[in-house]
């Protein structure tokens, strides 16, 4: 066996290699442009091809359907809606419902998650075991199963409208939901709202003044009587001068159901409950990992300063842990938002149910509707990420790690 000496690569090949390596210089730039152009061309071909074929099979395409009348009703609408509105309106009704369940779900998931994490880290043996069991049970069961469980559990526990559970004769709970008195704004509502706002701003101003005095001069100011006085006094004075800002319309049993008042539907309760509890289990683990990533010397330092365990956690450990917690926490928020699309299983009218479901099957325009829906979820996720990244950036700046 002979070993042939390999000829050195010709000039051209060397150049091409450099270009493909694309480290610097005009040749790498050319290659990147060519690659981008190829990607755009492939994307264009897919769209053009799909469009041509849709036309040749005479499947309706385009976005004109959005102006057509929807002709069906929705059980929970945050914006005014009736069957004679357009599909565009249906889209916004569904989007609002998705946003509502996501925002409230994220709030409760965060609160429960932090509580469970602190419980798991607690020196109290029983508390730590209960929190641990919660995490292991909840995060290991499929979320769709949990949604169905809470829905059927909630429904099974509730009576029919004629045997409603009544609280003070103005709150009613039955299998149609929770009926609560609906506030109706009186003429005095606007001044009242302004008074509340002013009171809150004044209270916040007082607090920051007190902090400044504490940090700058070591003076401890007693401000809570003033804060309380402003918060209660200002709104009270306006409502005494201008009459009650709100009156309430009470729900009443009419026919099959209650009329008047506002209502929280059981689908919403079950979905929010299931998503919050499910995501909270993951958040708990993330928070626990974050807190444990902070050196235990920090905890001891806090204790040696005479701070309580709670104050040490709040003032020293958690702010440092947040840097570790934030990125995976953002992922959990995104997951919760996307999991809310399982709502159709229990009849909660979210975006996927009313738009990607009913609208799609009534119009048959799958490509357009799926594209819009994907765009919406992408946008929601990007906005959530942007907010969390901004928060993370501010946090790291305040910790002095810019």
């Amino acid at each position: 066996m002979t070993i042939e000496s390999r000829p050195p690569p010709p000039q051209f090949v060397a150049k091409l290699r450099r270009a493909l390596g694309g480290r610097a210089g005009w040749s790498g730039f050319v290659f990147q442009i060519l690659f981008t152009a190829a990607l755009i061309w492939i994307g264009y071909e897919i769209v053009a091809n799909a469009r041509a074929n849709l036309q040749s099979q005479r499947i309706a395409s385009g976005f004109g359907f959005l102006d057509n009348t929807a002709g069906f009703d929705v059980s929970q609408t945050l914006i005014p809606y009736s069957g004679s509105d357009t599909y565009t309106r249906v889209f916004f009704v569904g989007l609002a419902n998705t946003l509502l369940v996501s925002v409230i779900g994220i709030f409760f998931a965060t609160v429960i998650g932090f509580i469970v994490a602190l419980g798991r880290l607690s020196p109290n043996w029983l508390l730590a075991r209960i929190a641990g069991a919660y995490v292991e049970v909840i995060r290991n069961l499929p979320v769709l199963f949990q949604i169905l469980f809470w829905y059927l559990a909630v429904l099974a526990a509730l009576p029919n409208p004629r045997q409603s559970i009544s609280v003070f004769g103005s709150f009613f709970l039955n299998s149609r939901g929770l009926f609560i008195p609906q506030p109706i704004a009186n003429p005095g509502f606007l001044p009242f709202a302004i008074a509340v706002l002013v009171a809150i701003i004044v209270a916040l101003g007082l607090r920051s003044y007190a902090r400044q005095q504490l940090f700058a001069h070591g003076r401890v100011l007693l401000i809570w009587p003033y804060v309380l006085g402003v918060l209660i006094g200002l709104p009270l004075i306006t409502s005494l001068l201008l009459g009650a800002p709100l009156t309430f319309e009470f729900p009443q049993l009419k026919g099959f159901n209650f009329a008047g008042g506002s209502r929280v539907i059981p689908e919403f309760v079950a979905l929010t409950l299931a998503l919050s509890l499910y995501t909270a289990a993951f958040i708990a683990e993330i928070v626990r990992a974050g807190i444990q990533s902070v050196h235990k010397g920090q905890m001891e330092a806090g204790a040696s300063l005479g701070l309580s365990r709670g104050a040490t956690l709040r003032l020293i450990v958690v702010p440092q842990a947040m840097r570790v917690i934030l990125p995976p926490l953002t992922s959990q928020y995104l997951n919760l938002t996307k999991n809310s699309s399982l709502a159709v299983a229990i009849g909660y009218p979210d975006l996927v149910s009313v738009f990607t479901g009913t609208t799609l099957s009534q119009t048959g325009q799958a490509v357009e509707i799926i594209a819009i829906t994907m765009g919406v979820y992408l946008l929601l996720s990007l906005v959530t990420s942007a907010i969390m990244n901004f928060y993370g950036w501010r946090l790291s700046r305040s910790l002095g790690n810019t």
Partner: protein
Amino acid sequence: MKRVSLVFTLALAAGLSTQIASAQTLKTVTDRGMLSCGVSQGLPGFSAPDDKGNWTGIDVDVCRAVAAVIFNDPSKVKFVPLSAKDRFTALQSGEIDVLSRNTTWTLSRDTSLGANFTGVTYYDGQGFLVKKSLKVNSALELNSASVCVQTGTTTEQNLADYFKSNNMKYEVIAFGTADETVKAYESGRCDVFTSDVSQLYAERLKLANPADHAVLPEVISKEPLGPMVRHGDDQWFDLVKWVLFAMVDAEELGITQKNVDDMAKSDKPELKRVFGTDGNLGEQLGVTKDWVSRIIKATGNYGEMFDRNVGAGSKLGIARGLNQLWNKGGIQYAPPIR
């Protein structure tokens, strides 16, 4: 559900290039050796798997009859269970050759979906199922009721129209599948479950105490249910259409599963044309001359199929009503085989 429809949509968007050659469905099916048939996720009487996994029902029998004509073997069908909202995308994307899934024939579905209805297998209408304990005797007494429906059906629009034109208020809760809808109705979330009447009878059987629930007398819509095929393949459209016509014509001519071999020997000119002993009508459809006897041997005539699946011979016990032959008081009518 969601993932399935996404898959279909991606297939539709990117894979339509292969679809352009769909003008030869019969050849594609023959080469594949299997008919792909879209059915429901389980609706007794129309398409439902039994405890051994065999599919039965009217919609299933239509597909079996088509398979019998092509392969002389009614078992060469792959049944694809589809939710109401995924069904059209599955047909458009080429995932299935025939959609036989209790689908209502409407103008918009016949035009904008890129598909055609081949006929009416069952004349249905939308009705209401209520608990007897509510003491409601008419749909007009349903003001302020909560109504459970399955999403992705014509039902939601009919419901909105009916309550609006009768100046009644209601609340609608729409679920993804029929099972979820019925479960919510049973747990007391709704006063009323609305769907096609045939489906109400079928779902009522699944309830814990069927006798506690009643179907109200009002039928608020026309729901002619039938199979669908894709636009752009007229030969395939003709074949699926005439399989159903042949079943109806066979009942009218008195051809049954029992007497089909005797009838095939008849020398009546009409029967000779039907059985292909005279002329080549089957070959004009692109299949064999004995296509009608293949259908009847596989599934029986229309009346036999009806009785076995939804009529007197089944658990549903639905009367023939509109689905009786035209010369016996119903409106089932098929053009002649000649």
